[in-house]
């Protein structure tokens, strides 16, 4: 084992375990007041009037009229307002804030606010969006973005085909279900606005405040507080409560706490995109897959948010781990009057791999061939090109990963045994996750920087990446101390503060270790050369690797800087009386390069698997007339500790050439492959096809009764 992989005690454990960590809602600076968001109760309407009761002293209404510069939350497109003005587009859209010293008085004021709406026919799902006409939600079209790309000679291959196998798959919403709800504290000293809160990306909030306030960056400060989970739900979303609290603090000149209630948080924060994915495989006379036609449709909700980027990752992942030479892939992110869909661990990957892996299972079934053999035949290898024609420069060890997971789980004998044993099944999946921003995003959009500062024998790390439970305050110290060859106690690293941490990019996309960790390693290597100097600092900039290329217009080239790979096996038994799925075991093998800390890696693997299990089974989340039906933890069912099956995980050795000490990204991949492996297992157990997730006992009853 590599020395760096040996686990050490995490630096955030002490405070969190002893309950000493001060989370945003625990922090009550003197004079602090509370704010609450008044939200739309209808899914689509014109606002005709808003009646506000007379306010007691020290109470404030904050709305669009308090915005000094632009009423827009900048994400990719500038379509989402900070506060609704003339129209609302989803249930839960913020209209104004009520702020003041007493929560009970705020609630009284909220109850007396009256909005007169003139409702407009809402667009409530992908199917309605596909056939809708004006008035549109976004510009003059039913979607935010539509993309297409080709590989090889798709048209000719289709003509050559002797057989077509087609499928349609549906996936549902998923809620991140972080323990700590969205929480922000804003303070204003007459010159500088300071945002402290629960977040993944401090600089996204900085950029939002620049746009909304029109202020110079020097007057804006964003600090991450200890954060109770995020899973993508605190990527782009905290910009909204961040800006809201800032506006309230500037208006009231008091510190303002804005903390969401659970039901409010579930109803109005971003969710995983529901999808419909159609895949057609074209086979020649030798039953070789010669071409694929894939169409992806996502429900983006009412505003564009990150839908374009999620859609890109979905369509770049949906060809799977397979080298099929001729492809026509297209995707559309539709605008609907639902809650805004956004980032969630896996970022389009879980939908894509659910679809392609279930499709591979179907092909194996149709061809009466072994599903593992079928997959192996098409596995991508070093030197092949990806679906976007980027060359895979590094060794790809899918065969090894698959061998390991098959052996560990005893897949072959169980698979054949369960053919005759009723209600038992076993399924597998093979998948990847592109690490880092899409295409050349790291170089063109983020331009990450890191800073190391030396003072005598001590070194401090300054990066904008956040500790969200994934261990960044530990792994970055390990990387820097290993590169410098100094004891880790001499390396210091705190929660990021935008005033002294350069923008090293958001804490997303399985990029922190791979990209930021590598920059820190390079920075430390430079520092080591000058070690005899007493105190100095180094800022390291990212450079796009010369062997990669990307064209963002044609989607040609290396869709991601690096890839992590994995395979899962899930074994199930269905209860004959109740149709409940009892998961007997989950086996998981990954190539994530060199693990930076084995225990942290295991934590990420098991947590991701459990979140994938919820996505595949119990986490039903549906909208009815634009309102989410499951908006509490009583009705939105995440797995409990008793629902977690035995998990057996293993890493294969294949160090990355790009990441620090050979490490790749890991945060997302454990979630990505669970749903298809579980669904395949259920398919075998009941002898019927599964084409949607989550799979509930109610669905299984429907299938077995047919």
């Amino acid at each position, binding site marked *: 084992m590599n020395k760096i992989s040996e686990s050490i005690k995490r630096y955030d454990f002490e405070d969190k375990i002893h309950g000493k960590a001060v989370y945003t809602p625990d922090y009550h600076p003197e004079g602090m007041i*509370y704010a*609450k968001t008044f939200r739309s109760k209808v899914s689509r309407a014109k606002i005709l009037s808003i009646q506000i009761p007379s306010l007691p002293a020290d109470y404030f209404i904050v709305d669009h009229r308090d915005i000094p510069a632009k009423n827009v939350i900048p994400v990719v497109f500038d379509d989402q307002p900070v506060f609704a003005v003339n129209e609302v587009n989803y249930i839960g859209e913020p209209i104004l804030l009520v702020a003041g010293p007493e*929560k*009970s008085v*705020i*609630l009284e004021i909220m109850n007396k606010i009256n909005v007169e709406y003139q409702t407009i026919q809402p667009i409530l799902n992908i199917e309605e969006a596909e056939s809708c006409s004006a008035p549109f939600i976004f510009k003059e079209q039913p979607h935010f973005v539509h993309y297409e790309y080709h590989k090889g000679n798709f048209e000719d291959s289709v003509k050559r085909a002797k057989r077509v196998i087609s499928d349609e798959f549906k996936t549902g919403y998923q809620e991140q279900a972080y323990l700590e709800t969205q929480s922000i504290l804003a303070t204003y000293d007459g010159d500088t606005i300071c945002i402290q809160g629960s977040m993944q990306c401090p600089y996204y909030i900085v950029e939002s405040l620049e746009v909304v306030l029109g202020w110079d960056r020097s007057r804006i400060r964003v600090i991450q507080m200890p954060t109770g989970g995020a899973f993508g739900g605190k990527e782009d979303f905290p910009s909204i409560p961040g800006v809201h609290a800032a506006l309230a603090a500037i208006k009231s000149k008091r510190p303002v706490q804005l*903390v969401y*209630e659970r039901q409010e948080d579930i109803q109005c924060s971003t969710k995983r995109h529901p999808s419909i994915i159609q895949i057609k495989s074209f086979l020649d006379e030798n039953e070789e897959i010669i071409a694929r036609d894939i169409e992806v449709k996502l429900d983006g909700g009412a505003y564009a948010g990150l839908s374009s980027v999620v859609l890109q990752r979905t369509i770049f992942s949906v060809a799977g781990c397979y080298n099929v030479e001729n492809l026509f892939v297209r995707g559309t992110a539709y605008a609907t009057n639902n809650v805004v869909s956004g980032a969630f661990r896996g970022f389009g990957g879980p939908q894509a791999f659910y679809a392609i892996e279930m499709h591979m299972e179907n092909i194996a079934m149709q061809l009466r061939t072994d599903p593992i053999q079928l997959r192996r035949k098409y596995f991508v290898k070093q030197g092949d090109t990806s679906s976007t024609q980027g060359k895979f420069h590094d060794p790809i060890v899918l065969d090894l990963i698959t061998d390991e997971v098959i052996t560990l789980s005893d897949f072959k004998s169980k698979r054949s045994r369960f053919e005759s044993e009723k209600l038992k099944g076993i399924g597998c999946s093979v998948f990847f996750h592109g690490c880092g921003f899409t295409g050349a995003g790291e170089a063109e959009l983020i331009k990450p920087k890191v800073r190391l500062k030396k003072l005598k024998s001590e070194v401090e790390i300054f990066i904008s990446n956040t500790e969200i439970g994934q261990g960044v305050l530990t792994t970055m110290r390990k990387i820097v101390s290993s590169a410098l060859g100094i004891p880790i106690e001499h390396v210091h690293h705190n929660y990021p503060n935008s005033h002294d941490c350069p923008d090293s990019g958001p804490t997303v996309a399985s990029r922190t270790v791979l990209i930021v960790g590598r920059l820190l390693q390079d920075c430390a290597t430079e520092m080591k050369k000058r070690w005899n100097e007493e105190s100095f600092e180094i800022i390291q900039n990212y450079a796009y690797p010369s062997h990669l290329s990307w064209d963002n217009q044609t989607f040609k080239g290396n869709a991601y800087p690096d890839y992590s790979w994995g395979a899962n096996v899930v074994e199930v038994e269905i209860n*004959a*009386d*109740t*149709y*409940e799925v009892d998961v007997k075991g989950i086996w998981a093998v990954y190539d994530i390069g060199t693990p930076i800390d084995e225990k942290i890696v295991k934590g990420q693997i098991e947590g991701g698997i459990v979140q994938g299990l919820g996505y595949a089974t*119990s986490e039903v989340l549906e909208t009815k007339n634009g309102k989410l*039906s*499951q908006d509490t933890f*009583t*009705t939105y*069912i995440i*797995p*409990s*500790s*008793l*629902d977690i099956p035995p998990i057996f995980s293993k890493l294969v050795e294949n160090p990355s050439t790009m990441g620090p000490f050979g490490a790749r990204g890991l945060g997302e991949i454990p979630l990505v492959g669970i749903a298809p492996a579980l669904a395949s297992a259920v398919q075998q157990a009941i002898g019927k096809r599964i084409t949607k997730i989550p799979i509930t*006992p*109610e669905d299984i*009853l*429907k299938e077995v*009764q047919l």
Partner: protein
Amino acid sequence: MSFRPASLSEALLIRKTNDVMVYCGGSDVMIKYRSWSGTPAQFPKDVLYIGHLKELKSIDVNDFEITIGATVSYAQFLQDERIPIEYKKPVEQIGSVAIRNIGTFSGNICNASPAGDTLTMLYALNAKVIVASTVGKREIAIENFITGPGSTCLKNDEILTHIIIPNQKFSHTYYYKVGTRKANAISKVSVFAVADVVEHRVTDIRIAVGSCGPTVIRLKEAEAKIIGSNTSNIESMIYSLLTMYDDKIVPIDDVRSTKVYRSKVALNLIETFLVKELGQ
């Protein structure tokens, strides 16, 4: 205004002279009437808190009856070694550790949800409740006490003080709860059943089905049909028995499950009990 009486008699007096909501563990009402965290729950009425009353905090067990005081928590019930293990099964699966530490049978009964986790057992065991007021006590069978979803015949001046479970041994007991997950879940369907089989002949049987109608369902006519039968004959009767249950099981579609699923699973569980469990 809230009341925290020193004794049951004081509590009954308050109940008589004020329009109050009785609050024991609070695990249902604190959720139902929750408000913005940091502000008090928005109770529709003044609250009469009885959770601390010591005189209602004991379990009495004799050869004939198990008497559970209104303020006995599920945890206390589970820790009591005099209680038969079979009766602990539904209680072990209620909510989480925290809920079992604070929740009570009396609260579960007065909340009268068709999904109440103790109710199927109480119906099957012919449990009774004692309600008291300043003028006296009434003893009411559980199925008469609960009148519909969320409604009971508890009068405005009464407090449920005790639950009485006949202390009877059965040759067979069966419990299955289908929750939305394995712990901390509300039931989609549940069945609690007991039977006495003497030399292959069924001498007593009670089957209670939860979450499948406005209240817990027990079909005495079906039970009467089974009593006296030889266990080896039950399989031949199963179709007509299940048809009787099917007629009376009237579940709804809701956020947790569907009508179709609840009916089918309830019938499956009844069948499993009658055919597999009793057949053994």
